[in-house]
């Protein structure tokens, strides 16, 4: 019964989404306030019904209702309760429902925040969000319904994919989705601006806030995914340039560019076309991710069950949303252009370079990801484009970009005397160069020019980001830094930390495979290991072989590592659980391979210097974003707007 209620709720949500998409937009075009006023209630109603639908799915999962096809495919009675609940996004249909639910939450938030916005503008934004919702709900309802029944009903389910039975894997999709789906908000803002044919300072400020929140979640989501892959998959890698990974990374790159472009638009009222295009691009790339994961067009470990029908539907949605927005852009962009000059040496120039380089980087990733499809479609054969290509090509725009971050942060708007810049930064640059070359050589010995360059640039950005805060702290000069500025410094510092981690962990990774018998001692990466043997342990729904290794540094014991190989009872698939010892400077990573007979086991040991900096750097970036988004000027502006919303409404209604 409950799943049927869920279906009904979904259908009602679709109806409300259709109302939310049509009436407010027509109302804005025709100036009918009563139609525009339907936007917020429709959004609220849609949220309620989507929530009911999601609750219905959870109910089916938690009560082991295997007559529902999705539950039978992705759950099992022996599955721990926590994973039963999170199995909701363990498969295609459920994850689409999650997508829709997250969009409903975003829409509700935007609706609530829109009280202080001019009605015409708010209706357009909510209207566009309504179109997106309607499209996605229709997609789920007609092609990927999570409430489909399965007859005859199996006695038990297929169990959740063991890879997903892990806390890290469980937070990663929802967090990522909040970010992914969040790109729909700046998209809606952009389309609303195109429809109106204008875009003002308030637009920029609101757009910047919403974009920042989406960006923070995207950053966290991608970081979680990468971190999870690292500790869960057993081979010690953290990024593979897999098509699905790329399709989460590209929206992030574009949202980062958007954030920075909005800074210029908010301040100077220029780069409007850039901003609108970047907003459209970010959301389109996010939809592209949905397309690539579910259509079967690309091979990926992340791909859900693929189906050309679903692929066609999503392609249709892409054509509607992206094609529609870009068509609007072609027609209206001329109206948005504005004059506003700046000198060659100025903050605007650096932010322009930022835009261009990030777009180029995104273009490279997109091109490499889609290339196998391009050549196959043209009948030129089957090719693979993988990490060797991306690692090489991606650095081309990114190394200069990161280096420029260090300079751009200290530039003034409109014009910046080059000599002042040089004078402020030269010693820092020299120090970064010296350390960047010396430290790797001293600590690690033989190095490549590329590594030295990357380390130097990373140190440079870190130092440059800290320059202002440290100077103010030490000399107590100048006005106190605003949260926006602190956030910026923190985030850029995080970029440097991340880059340091990525460079050092890649360049100086130590790896060794060997066979070990109980009692064997072996040396790896500067540490000594003693293998004490393997025993069987039992988990709630798996049985595991657990190895015990003690490791030493110069005779001093640093602890015991217990890697496992789990076999989950239902799916009978072996899963590696690597044992990792973490500290700030390195990870010691130990994975158990297979039993070689006669008590011997194959083992992989890795020592990965500074890999923690990857997660630390990303977290600092997200933290920086959080600090910046709580900047006083947003909160003050919000309070002011709350006091006088009515006046604004009538004023802009006349425009």
């Amino acid at each position, binding site marked *: 019964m409950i799943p049927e209620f869920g279906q009904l709720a979904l259908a009602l949500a679709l109806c409300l989404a259709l109302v939310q998409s049509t009436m407010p937009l027509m109302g804005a075009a025709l100036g009918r306030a009563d139609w525009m006023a339907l936007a917020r209630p429709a959004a609220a109603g849609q949220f309620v019904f989507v929530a009911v639908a999601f609750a219905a799915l959870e109910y089916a999962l938690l009560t082991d209702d295997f007559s529902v096809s999705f539950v039978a495919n992705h759950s099992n009675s022996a599955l721990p309760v926590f994973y039963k609940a999170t199995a909701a996004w363990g498969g295609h249909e459920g994850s689409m429902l999650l997508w829709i639910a997250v969009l409903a939450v975003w829409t509700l938030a935007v609706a609530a925040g829109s009280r202080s916005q001019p009605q015409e503008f708010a209706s357009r934004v909510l209207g566009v969000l309504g179109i997106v919702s309607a499209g996605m709900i229709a997609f789920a309802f007609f092609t990927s319904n999570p409430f489909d029944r399965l007859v005859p009903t199996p006695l038990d389910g297929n169990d959740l994919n063991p890879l997903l039975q892990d806390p890290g894997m469980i937070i990663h999709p929802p967090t990522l989705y909040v970010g992914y789906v969040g790109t729909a908000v700046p998209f809606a803002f952009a389309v609303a601006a195109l429809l109106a044919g204008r875009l003002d300072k308030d637009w920029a400020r609101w757009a910047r806030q919403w974009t920042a929140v989406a960006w923070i979640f995207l950053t966290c989501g991608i970081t979680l995914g990468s971190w999870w892959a690292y500790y869960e998959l057993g081979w010690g890698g953290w990024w593979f340039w897999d098509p699905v990974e790329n399709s989460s990374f590209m929206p992030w790159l574009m949202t980062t560019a958007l954030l920075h472009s909005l800074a210029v638009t908010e301040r100077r009222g220029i780069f409007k076309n850039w901003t609108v295009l970047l907003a459209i691009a970010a959301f389109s790339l996010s939809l592209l991710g949905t397309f690539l994961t579910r259509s079967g067009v690309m091979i990926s470990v992340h791909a859900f069950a693929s189906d050309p029908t679903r*692929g066609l539907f999503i392609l249709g949605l892409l054509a509607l949303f992206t094609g529609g927005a870009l068509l609007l852009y072609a027609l209206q962009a001329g109206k948005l252009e504005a004059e506003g000059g700046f000198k060659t040496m100025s903050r605007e120039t650096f932010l322009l370079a930022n835009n261009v380089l990030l777009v180029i980087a995104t273009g490279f990733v997109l091109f490499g990801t*889609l290339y196998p499809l391009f050549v*196959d479609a043209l009948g030129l054969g089957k090719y693979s484009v993988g990490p060797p290509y991306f690692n090489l090509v991606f650095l081309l725009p990114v190394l200069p970009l990161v280096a420029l971050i260090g300079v751009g942060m200290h530039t003034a708007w409109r014009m910046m005397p080059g000599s002042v810049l040089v004078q402020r930064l030269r010693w820092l640059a020299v120090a970064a160069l010296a350390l960047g070359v010396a430290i790797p050589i001293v600590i690690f010995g033989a190095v490549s020019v590329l590594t030295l360059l990357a380390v130097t640039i990373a140190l440079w950005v870190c130092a440059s980001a800290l320059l202002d805060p440290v100077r103010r702290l030490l000399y107590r000069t100048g006005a106190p830094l605003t949260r926006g500025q602190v956030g910026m410094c923190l985030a850029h510092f995080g970029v440097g930390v991340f880059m340091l981690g990525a460079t050092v962990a890649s360049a100086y990774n130590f790896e060794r495979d060997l066979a070990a018998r109980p009692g064997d001692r072996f040396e790896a990466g500067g540490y000594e290991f003693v293998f004490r043997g393997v025993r069987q342990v039992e988990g709630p729904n798996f049985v595991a072989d657990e190895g015990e290794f003690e490791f030493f540094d110069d005779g001093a014991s640093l602890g015991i590592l217990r890697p496992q190989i789990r076999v989950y009872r239902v799916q009978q698939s072996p899963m590696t659980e690597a044992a990792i010892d973490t500290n700030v400077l390195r990870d010691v990573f130990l994975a158990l391979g297979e039993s070689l007979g006669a008590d011997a086991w194959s083992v992989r040991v890795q020592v990965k210097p500074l890999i923690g900096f990857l997660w630390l750097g990303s977290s600092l970036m997200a933290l920086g974003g959080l600090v910046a988004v709580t900047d006083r000027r947003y909160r003050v502006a919000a309070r002011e707007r709350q006091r006088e919303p009515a006046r604004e409404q009538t004023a802009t209604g006349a425009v």
Partner: protein
Amino acid sequence: MLRYVVPLAIFAVIGLFFLRGLWLNPSYVPSPLVGKPVPTFSLPDVEDTSATVSSADLLGRVALVNVWGTWCVECRHEHGFLVELARAGVPIFGLNVRDDRVAAGKWLARLGDPYVSSGFDPEGKVAIDWGVTGAPETFLIGSDGTILHKHISPLTPFVWQRDFVPLLREHCGPSDCAFLAAVGAR
């Protein structure tokens, strides 16, 4: 202004590729060995340790080479059809990969032996020369030793009719392939 249409144009082109891509199969990788001569090999027979199976055996008439192993669940699905083909006179050679000799012998005894002979390739070295990625895989070899076709996944009557029979008609000599009368046209 014309430049405002550029993003839309780029999107349209990419979209067309996606549309085309929906009907392509990215996992299907054609073998580069098709059209080339059979890789030279010589393996001991799986059952008769004194005999050998070699690439020379594949010359002179059209034949099939089938990759199999007792560990391969899918191989059981095609085994019945292979036996049927063998009874009709199709020469089928086996390539037994990563397997245990005794188990392989028992398997053939229990399920039937469609093979003229099966090469024993426990480490998969010869399989690599054939570009084998797993089992079951079936190759069609012409009488001059050229690889005419490679099929991955179980060989079913449908696949046989669709892919193998047309090639057989094309490449069989006038007195070759008497079996086509029995298993050719359906």
